[in-house]
């Protein structure tokens, strides 16, 4: 029975020239096609598609997380930069303050030293003036004594005699003039 169907089928196919139209082959073709489709469908739904979907979702979440992490790191970098700038400004202000303080201290020291030196100089000058005045007074006395002696000797050499009282009075008058 099967043989006759096949023969007639093949005869029909040869007549039409297309093996595709051989009805004897339809049964096995359809059966195995359906088996194939069912197998592929189950392989896809049970294994392949969930796995690929999982991988894609995981990649998407990884990318999202990475972008978020990068954003966070960028924020942190900006904050760090701000903190650095702040620290730099603080340090600069501190340094300026220290410099100003040191300057003021030094100025005070210098002023004190200058005042002390002025006072010392004034004292020394006064002392020197006193000494000069004393020396001058001493010198006038000595000149007077020398002039008296010289006058007495000159008067004696001229043959006159003069008492000490007159000479002294004359010298004193001359010294004043």
């Amino acid at each position: 029975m099967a043989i006759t169907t096949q023969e007639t089928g093949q005869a029909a196919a040869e007549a039409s020239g297309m093996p595709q139209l051989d009805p004897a082959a339809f049964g096995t073709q359809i059966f195995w096609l359906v088996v194939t489709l069912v197998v592929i469908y189950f392989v896809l739904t049970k294994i392949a598609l969930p796995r690929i979907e999982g991988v894609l979702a995981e990649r998407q979440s990884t990318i999202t997380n990475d972008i978020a992490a990068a954003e966070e790191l960028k924020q942190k970098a900006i904050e760090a930069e701000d903190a650095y700038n702040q620290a730099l400004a603080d340090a600069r202000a501190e340094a300026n303050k220290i410099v100003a303080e040191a300057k003021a201290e030094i100025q005070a020291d210098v002023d004190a030293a200058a005042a002390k030196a002025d006072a010392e100089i004034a004292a020394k000058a006064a002392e020197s003036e006193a000494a000069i005045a004393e020396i001058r007074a001493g010198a006038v006395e000595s000149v007077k004594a020398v002039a008296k002696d010289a006058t007495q000797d000159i008067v004696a050499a001229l043959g006159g005699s003069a008492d000490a009282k007159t000479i002294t009075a004359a010298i004193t008058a001359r010294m004043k003039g």
Partner: protein
Amino acid sequence: MAEQSAKQGGGLAKIVFFVVLALVLISGVVFAPETRELAIHPMEQFKVTPLFGGDLGAITITNQTLWLALSVISVILLLVVGSRGRAIIPSRSQSIAELAYGFIYKMVEDVAGKDAVKYFPGIMTLFMFIVTANFLGLLPMSFTTTSHIAVTAILAGIVFVFVTILGFVKNGAGFLGLFWVSSAPLPLRPILAIIELISYFVRPVSHSIRLAGNVMAGHAVIKVFAGFAGALGVAGFLPIFAISAVLALEVLVAFIQAYVFTILTCVYLKDALHPSH
């Protein structure tokens, strides 16, 4: 300098390989006198023959069964074995698997709508089967399962029956609105309804014959050229060259027909889910 000479050496080896291949082919043509008669049997490649003898019964294992099994294995190799690494940075085969997944998923989403996504595994099954069967069919001496109208008719029939039942289940009698063109003037509507109804029932026919016809035509053309090559002797390089060109075209057709079949399935699915015009 050494790199360049190595590259040139590789090119030279390639040229030598192709020259030897061409000589073997041409000598086979020239020195095999019994093949020189015009023996063109372009349709023989489509014959379904039992692998282990016997008659063609309903579940006989035939050469077609073998190539159906090979396409199942190809799908498993590509989508299951290829993606086994589950890597964040994919390997090459995993990339292809993800590409296929994204391609069909986006197609379903864009063409059939967001609510059609739950039918994505079925559409993916259709696409993967057709695309692997088409590409396997391009191998020399292979059997192309999608060149058989019995195969494509079942594929299109599954889509047609599923989509029709889904349309009625989702929309009830509202599914008939698909045939009632409410934007047309009232007197025209019954006529349009008849045309729409006919075109609806022609869908599975065109859907199936388009795929089988395209695949079969290309394969038959290649076989015809191959017969010329046998008959022409030394001048056989001309048809061999033509075969290369047709084969390149067939590579395109293999993918495009799988794509067309799948996108039409999505369109029909959209009609079932949203029957209003």
